[in-house]
């Protein structure tokens, strides 16, 4: 897992300003002058240049460096700083930090360290370095108080924005900031608070943006505008490798307000996600309505590319099924422990099953969009991104500007789910702004997000289990076929599997003879990172299959799992990694106790369970479901997670409930299919996210109290929801769903 310290130059915290009546603590460099942005010194909070600013009136500004796509970083990260600062949370204002970039010998230097969201590393990175920012500010203020009062600093304590003396006198931080700013910070890292003194970490906090969101005041990138910007909308080629056959622009240009019609094309030899996703024709107009009317008037024809006709999701699936049925060598043998042949000779029973999961689109709520202003030696952008540094590199490549002449603002983002780790829409907006010499606000429609996405690949899993005497699982032979999300992204062929399989995923380390093979499918359809992958597809296959083993053995599937997991222990996995079996057993126990699993056999509804682990975090779901005729009712959902220390329990509950519902929604209805290289789903009628009625009325979330270092949790609850539901459906209806989307398959089988 990456941390915030991804660069070689030594970073340290320093006082950026202390003379203008405010104490500003930020990140500096051992060998660089850090310019203080004027905004940090005045009243303009628009561009916060550091993490913490304390004003004389006691107000505290804390910067949130990772984009908040709904994962709660804008609340959790500042609270980590505020905790070490002993700030009064009611006096804290959180400011989203844009991209922090300075130039050093023509190269970018990332002044805020980690700036990425939705990849599970925001909280661990913040835990590693942001606590020091708060600790330094508190240390300086305490030193200032010590000097003024003539009391040794170690006899003073801090509490909710006050320095408190041994005899109970209280001095607000604001009264000390001017003096604090003149004190030299120490060279060594400061000691951090012992957890028993925490007043913010571990306590629930509502979203810092909540009030602005419910009053419609929060500005997303789509809501940003420059008065002189042109609105750009696109007609996109339905084939990623296709091209424009003919175009008639006159009727579009005749629309009042339409300024220009121009084609844009993906650059050749540029990785997916860094250039336009497909050829397109842009209509640029003075306002959105004129642009959309112009788009409707555009007469154009596209022609397929060389490989378009070959792209067919049905054929690809057939290919995958055939591939896994032969004994052809896998692309990568990810794990091969023990002796499957020897195990096979001891087989008392064998179980085999194949699971098929469809291609999926990200379906982000906020459409792809980007606002860009290009001046002679400056680019200014507002971008809905999960990875501002990657957005920066796209802009830098297309403009050739100096690193620090590219300003990227990242307001709250209307959902990411991995889609906004790619920046094709940024490339498109910059290409257009260069061509028209005016600021451009590019806006896709939501439907275009379905037809032009970096999809999650469809997958096929074929698993064989060998069961020895005494119902012991002695062999596990797993094959998976998928089109790697890393194809074309500069990753070596023997590493393409890393986006498709987690090497330590269950049941690695738990079965004496265990093999996990990955087969690469060739597809020209764009693919990319997707929330919760590769865990979601793998957990569906593995955790469904464990239930199938239980069924073969005619036993309670919880017993099968308990026998597979064995005693609580630290299990070192061959080839690296550690599985804390005790923590996994614990979440499994918590959900099965809560749902009253003891009624599993006689319950009128079906119950299902599943468990998983991701990078040292543990999750289990227990679900109760009923099948009434053709209707599936999800009666009850319980989820337990163990993520290490919980920064914000309210935020975590929201993430867990949200990821559960998202995973159920993805499993119930939608699928992307393509024929002749064209995606067949043109709108949300064909790609239905779950309705309120399909989803459970409640998700009961259980958090495991824990003092280990915190892990990321934004997608932890994704993988186990769908298999727990499939297992409950089997119990309720005797129908085993081995193919998603679930509703379609259920209707076929019932």
């Amino acid at each position, binding site marked *: 897992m990456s941390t915030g310290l991804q660069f070689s130059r030594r970073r340290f915290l320093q006082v950026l300003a202390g003379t203008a009546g405010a104490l500003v603590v930020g990140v500096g460099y051992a060998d660089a002058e850090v310019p203080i942005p004027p905004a940090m010194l005045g009243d303009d909070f628009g561009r916060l240049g550091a993490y913490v600013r304390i004003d004389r009136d006691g107000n505290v500004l804390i910067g949130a460096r990772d984009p908040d796509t709904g994962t709660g970083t804008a609340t959790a990260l500042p609270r980590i700083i505020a905790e070490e600062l002993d700030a009064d949370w009611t006096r804290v204002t959180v400011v989203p930090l844009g991209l922090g970039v300075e130039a050093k010998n023509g190269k970018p230097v990332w002044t805020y360290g980690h700036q990425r969201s939705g990849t599970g590393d925001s909280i661990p990175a913040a835990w590693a370095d942001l606590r020091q920012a708060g600790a330094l500010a508190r240390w300086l203020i305490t030193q200032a108080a010590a000097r003024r009062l003539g009391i040794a600093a170690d006899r003073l304590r801090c509490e909710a924005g006050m320095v408190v003396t041994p005899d109970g006198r209280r001095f607000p931080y604001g009264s000390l900031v001017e003096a604090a700013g003149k004190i030299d910070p120490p060279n060594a890292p400061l000691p951090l608070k012992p957890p028993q003194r925490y007043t913010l970490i571990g306590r629930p906090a*509502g979203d810092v943006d909540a009030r602005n969101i*419910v009053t419609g005041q929060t500005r997303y990138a789509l809501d940003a505008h420059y008065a002189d910007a042109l609105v750009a909308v696109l007609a996109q080629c339905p084939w990623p490798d296709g091209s424009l056959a003919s175009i008639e622009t006159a009727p579009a240009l005749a629309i009042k307000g339409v300024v220009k019609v121009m084609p844009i094309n993906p650059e050749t030899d540029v990785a997916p996600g860094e250039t336009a996703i497909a050829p397109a024709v842009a209509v640029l107009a003075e306002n959105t309505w004129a642009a959309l009317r112009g788009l409707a008037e555009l007469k154009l024809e596209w022609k397929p590319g060389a490989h378009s006709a070959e792209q067919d999701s049905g054929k690809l699936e057939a290919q995958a099924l055939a591939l896994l049925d032969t004994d052809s060598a896998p692309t990568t043998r990810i794990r091969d422990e023990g002796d499957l042949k020897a195990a096979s000779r001891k087989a008392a029973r064998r179980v085999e099953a194949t699971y098929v999961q469809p291609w999926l689109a990200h379906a982000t709520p906020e459409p792809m969009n980007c606002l860009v202003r290009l001046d002679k030696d400056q680019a200014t952008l507002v971008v809905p991104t999960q990875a501002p540094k990657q957005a920066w590199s796209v802009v830098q490549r297309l403009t050739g500007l100096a690193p620090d002449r590219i300003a990227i603002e990242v307001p709250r*983002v209307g959902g990411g789910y991995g889609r906004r780790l790619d920046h094709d829409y940024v490339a498109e907006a910059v290409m257009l702004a260069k061509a028209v010499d005016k600021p451009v606000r590019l806006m896709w429609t939501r439907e275009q997000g379905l037809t032009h996405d970096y999809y999650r690949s469809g997958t096929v899993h074929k698993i064989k289990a060998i069961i020895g005497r005494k119902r012991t699982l002695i062999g596990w032979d797993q094959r998976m076929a998928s089109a790697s999300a890393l194809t074309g992204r500069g990753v070596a062929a023997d590493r393409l599997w890393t986006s498709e399989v987690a090497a330590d995923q269950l049941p690695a380390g738990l079965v004496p003879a265990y093999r996990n093979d990955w087969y690469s499918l060739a597809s020209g359809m764009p693919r990319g990172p997707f929330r919760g992958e590769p865990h979601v597809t793998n957990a569906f296959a593995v955790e469904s299959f464990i239930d199938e083993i239980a069924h073969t053995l005619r036993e309670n599937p919880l017993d099968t799992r308990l026998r597979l997991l064995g005693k609580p222990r630290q299990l070192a996995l061959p080839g690296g990694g550690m599985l804390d079996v005790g923590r996994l057993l614990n979440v499994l126990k918590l959900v099965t106790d809560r749902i009253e699993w003891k009624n599993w056999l006689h319950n009128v509804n079906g119950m299902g369970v599943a468990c998983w682990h991701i990078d040292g975090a543990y999750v289990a779901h227990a679900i109760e479901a009923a099948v009434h005729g053709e209707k599936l009712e999800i009666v009850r959902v319980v989820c337990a997670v163990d993520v290490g220390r919980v920064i914000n329990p309210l935020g975590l509950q929201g993430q867990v409930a*949200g990821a559960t519902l998202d995973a159920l*929604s993805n499993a119930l209805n939608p699928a992307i299919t393509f024929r002749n290289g064209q995606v067949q789903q043109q709108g*949300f009628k064909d790609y239905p996210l779950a309705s309120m009625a399909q989803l459970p009325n409640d998700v009961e979330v259980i958090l495991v109290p824990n003092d280990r270092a915190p892990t990321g949790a934004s997608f932890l609850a994704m993988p186990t929801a769908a298999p727990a539901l499939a297992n409950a459906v089997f119990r309720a209806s005797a129908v085993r769903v081995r193919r998603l989307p679930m509703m379609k398959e259920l209707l076929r089988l019932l």
Partner: protein
Amino acid sequence: MQQAQAQGLPPATTGDITPEPVREGIDLIVNGERFRHTGDPLMPLLWYLRDVLRLTGTKLGDAHGEDGYDLVLVNGKAVSAIKRPMAKLVGARVTTVEGLAHADGSLHPLQQAFIDEDAIGCGYCTPGWLIAGIDLLTRKPKPTDEDIDKLPNRCRCGVQTRVRRAIKRAAGVKA
């Protein structure tokens, strides 16, 4: 003018200033303020709100306005702003998410309930949920789970269970 007369002042002289001809347009009330739209009558309300009035709380959803992102109240009922052309809004009273709170800043009970129940994911779909929820509470002050099931809104962050609780909290019914 009436005020001037009431104070006994002579009526303001028009002199040789020619009054501007009254511009033809569509009069409507948005969040309590009067506006006149003089542009294309076929322009959907969504773009009038977002581009002309710069009220950006109402979001772009799907083209057919079926997933609830672009809901506003027109004469008290939830309608899709992208499906409603300005021509059909003559004299209409439109309320967007920006107009739900009271002038003194105090929130509508459902807005407060969304905060209290943490019924927010990325927040992009929140304005639509609020409008749909207020429309429901107006029709059925004590909605059942089946009533809530009928809300059209779609969300990928998974706020549905928390929205359900928020609506029940605002309605004062048991969760």
